[in-house]
């Protein structure tokens, strides 16, 4: 529900806030599924860091009332038809796939953080290293791309 609202708001901040709501709800779902680690991660990283980034950028860009108006005119109902149909088809396909299998939850156990940690540093240690490399690359890229000094402006093209 919140997600639907998130995608349909005109004001960026409103959309963000709705999204945060949906993230929190998902975290609850995770917890209910017996994955507390994932729930914690969701709240801390996703809702905490990524959304905060979004908020920062929106604030930086200083989108005011005209932006909201622009959004309104961009978001005409006729624009929704195509994607809605596409999504509906996709959803239908998912349900078709799942319809056959009736798999109830087997055990009601919980996969605790300890187990996840063991797996991370046991089986998936290479993946962890790679992920850290990815983060490093993202850091460097974001830093470089976010510069706005005079040299860039004179250069002309986006470096």
């Amino acid at each position, binding site marked *: 529900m919140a997600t639907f609202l998130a995608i349909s708001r005109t004001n960026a901040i409103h959309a963000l806030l709705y999204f945060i709501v949906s993230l929190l709800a998902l975290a609850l779902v995770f917890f209910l599924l017996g994955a507390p680690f994932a729930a914690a991660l969701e709240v801390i990283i996703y809702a905490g860091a990524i959304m905060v980034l979004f908020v920062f950028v929106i604030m930086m860009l200083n989108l005011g009332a005209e932006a909201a108006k622009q959004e309104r005119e961009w978001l005409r109902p006729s624009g929704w038809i*195509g*994607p809605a149909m*596409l999504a509906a*088809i*996709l959803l239908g*396909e998912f349900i*078709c*796939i799942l319809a056959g299998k009736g798999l109830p939850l087997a055990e009601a156990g919980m996969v605790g953080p300890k187990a996840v940690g063991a797996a991370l540093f046991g089986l998936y240690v290479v993946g962890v290293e790679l992920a850290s490399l990815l983060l490093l690359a993202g850091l460097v890229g974001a830093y470089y791309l976010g510069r706005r000094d005079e040299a860039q402006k004179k250069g002309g093209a986006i470096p």
Partner: protein
Amino acid sequence: MRELLWLIPALPCAGFFILTLAGARLSHRGVALIGAGSVGLAALLSALVGLAFITAPPSSYAYVQTLWTWLEVSGLQPGIAFHLDPLALVMITVITAVGFLIHLYAVTYMGEEEGYGRFFAYMNLFVGAMLTLVLADNLLLLYLGWEGVGLCSYLLIGFWYRDPVSGYAARKAFVVTRVGDVALALGILLLATQVGTLHIQDLLRETARQWPDGSPLATLAAFLILGGALGKSAQLPLQTWLPDAMAGPVPVSALIHAATMVTAGVYLIARLQGLFTLAPAAQGAVAAIGAATLLLAGCSALVQRDIKRILAYSTISQIGYMFLALGVGAWSAAIFHFLTHAFFKALLFLGAGAVMLGLNHERDIYRMGGLRTRLPLTFWTFLVGAASLSAFPLVTAGFYSKEFILAQAWQSGGPWLWAAGIAGAFLTSLYAFRMVFLVFCGPAKGDVSLAPSLCRDIPLLVLALLAIVSGFLETPRTLGGLSLLTDFLRTGGPASLPELSLEVRLQLIASLASLAGIYTAYLFFRKRPRLAEEPQSAVVRLLHRFWFSGWGFDWLYHALLVQPFLWLAKINRDDFLDLIYRATAWCAAASHRALSRTQTGQVRWYAAVIAGGTVALVALAVFL
């Protein structure tokens, strides 16, 4: 001597090669030396070989020289081999002698033209091909020479290739003779498959042995061969190309279209006379076509204005006489007329060339006049030629040869053919002297400027002499009874001769016809020229126009053949196969256009397409 036989066709071919490769770099003198020289040498050689042949005739009455075997296919083994018998000897002597004289004439006549080397190269190739045709001992080699002369005819008629009229005339000549060539090829194939050999002497022996008189196979083969001869010799119904072929230079017309190539058909029939004897139907057709053609062409020659066209129609008509002779079985008469005709027709063409050159390329005889005093040598030689053409009694060669044919026509062909011949003789002298009177006599029109030239005058004189003297090879019994040619040719001569008094009467009638023509021409074109220049009634005018267009054959062929073909070509312009190729190209271009439209550069569009594609794939995975 016999070993040098191969040089006779080889020398002009060598001249052709040299001139093709180096002609542009040689000076005029060098080109003339090689061009005329090669033919001159060939003439000398033929004379020597002929002398050896006459003085010491070989046992089989033929020289045979085999060079090598050309092909070997399913039992046929045609070779490159030459067979010289009296018929071939006469032909090569005429071809090389007249050819040399014409080459000599062309040395100065074509002196101003660009493409001098090219001209002589083609002329040499022509002489080489013609000699191959005549000396060939099998039909395949003959066909090679046949095609060669056809090619050279095309090349030489279209010598001034920048002029579209020349190009059209060359193409027309090629296509019309092509029709004949197809018939000839079919005839050769028929003979090859039915008889199993293409060697001419063997062929004639085998067919005489195997096929009865009048057998359908022989008749079919003879008719097909006749078809080929009709094309090359410009007889009915394939005669339309020759008048237009006058678009080529004068030496070309003299050599190819008067003396040699057009007589290739006559040679072919004479060579294969054994076959024609087996097929009387075909032989009758030969005579009938000859008679019809000579009358038709004679009428057309009467009303032409272009001096060369008159001579062209005259050639068609005279070859009609030769065909007439062949058709009634008078083989040596036909060859005799070929001999004399070569001389006087070449003479007439060369003389016409001198006239045209002097009047700055003027061709219309109504714009010429009074050249008798201004071009005396040309006048006298031309007069000799015209007299020979009209068979002026007793002194000209034409008289003897034509007389011979007419006597045979009466004897073996019946009165109708003879009557056609007599009418033709009258027409011939009429149009010949119309030409003489209009061109050389009467008031002078136009300026004359002709540089004197030995190269031009010598051939005229020599040919004039020959046009008189060559007649004495064969004289009728009442006037000396010489039969040098018939004896030499050793072909089946006339079966029987008419009795003496009848023969004298026939000769008188023939002479009268010729003289009457001359007198009528004098009447119309000299004494009272206005009578001819203003055709009176509508009928006469209609007739005039009909004859002028060559009895409407051009129009007929255009309507029957050319128009439908053009129509077919036009509707087939976007033909089926073409459409397939174009459709392929169009599909490629259309897909390109369609695909380009997807490259919008807009992110959302790309995202949508990706999403749509993914959904489709998932659907595929789910439902299949």
